[in-house]
């Protein structure tokens, strides 16, 4: 392959665990950088996205900024990947969907343990929260899903090599789990 494959990654409403897992492919990381070049990603701290072959999204969509970033990724990436439980189905953050936003915010900022200045933050700079946390496929078209909390480094490696080599995507049994 002549040109390196351009990859961008982002963490929306996630815990960066999936990004840690990308790094967790260990020594294969060296093979990976042979094949790919990172565009916007927390890994290199590049903040704007250019045209990419692959976009990898960790985390679900919880606020207006998540929506914006996700849409930008969809626009700039040929292939968009939902990485990890939160991107795939909302994950742990989606457990807040059982409550109204008001209840969530009041619990956190008003009645929470250790709150000394009860007040729901409303600086216009802070992105507004959506009433529910959504998996990313409910906002944009997603081409591939990699479940797991987080998906293992091995799963990510299997996937990326298959994708890059244009092979059908399939995994050994142990590499797919939802937790």
């Amino acid at each position: 392959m002549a040109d390196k494959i351009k990859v961008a990654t982002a963490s929306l409403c996630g815990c960066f665990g999936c990004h840690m897992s990308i790094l967790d492919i260990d020594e294969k990381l060296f093979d990976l950088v042979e094949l790919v070049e990172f565009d916007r990603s927390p890994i290199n701290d590049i903040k704007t996205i250019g045209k990419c072959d692959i976009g990898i999204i960790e985390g679900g969509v919880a606020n207006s900024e998540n929506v914006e970033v996700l849409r930008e990724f969809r626009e700039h990436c040929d292939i968009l990947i939902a990485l990890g439980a939160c991107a795939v189905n909302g994950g742990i953050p989606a457990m807040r969907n059982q409550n109204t936003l008001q209840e969530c915010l009041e619990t956190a900022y008003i009645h929470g343990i250790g709150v000394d200045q009860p007040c729901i933050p409303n600086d216009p700079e802070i992105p507004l929260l959506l009433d529910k946390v959504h998996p990313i496929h409910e906002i944009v078209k997603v081409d591939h899903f990699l479940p797991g909390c987080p998906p293992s480094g091995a799963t990510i490696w299997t996937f990326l090599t298959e994708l890059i080599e244009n092979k059908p995507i399939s995994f050994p049994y142990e590499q797919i789990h939802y937790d």
Partner: protein
Amino acid sequence: MPEQQTFKLDSKTIPFRDGDTIMDAALRAGEYIPHLCHNPEFTPHGSCRVCVVSANGRHVSACTQQAMNDMEVDNRSDAIMDKRRNLLQMLFVEGNHVCPGCEKSGACQLQAVAYYTNMLSPHYTHFFPKRSVDASHADIAIDFNRCILCELCVRASRDVDRKNIFSISGRGIKARLVINSDTGKLGDSDLTATDKAVHVCPVGAILPKHRGYDKPIGERLYDRQPVSQVGDVAAHDEDDNHG
């Protein structure tokens, strides 16, 4: 002696007896047909539809369809697997399944069957229904978020325990499991930890308390081998049933 009756399950010839369903005969022959609401100890229910097969070209549920001589049953084709995956995806979006936070994870049959069908995402739009957790009972908790309405607990409590503790209320997407006690709470029912109903739930909805996450990841029921080899969660000693 009358000639042995058989049918074809994919390429295998499966013998059967009068009155057998496709599922009965397949199970006896050691052949796996994915299922959730079926448990050989109870009368077939046919509600989850995950055991859908194509028998002589007709889509039927293997757990309810009587086996017939020379029947040709498709249990493995991509088309059949695709239907099952879609049914599982519907079950996932219908409830609130947060596997990373579920004690049953790794030993959950819904998960395991989903792995078996290569389900990588729930695909559909989530309903995110508001459901509750009932922890009022001293020994058993029930998390309605994870209930898939297989009615195994309903059947076990009615037919084995003779207590009728569970039943179904509502209809359509509003159908839900309810507890038969004055308050509707599990703690006010006669359920005991040794009841059959407590040991048949294929998912993490009915769980014994005071434990959980007691098997390390990698050693749980379905961590290393697929459900087609391990079998139903209910068939394993209940001490093994936990993540």
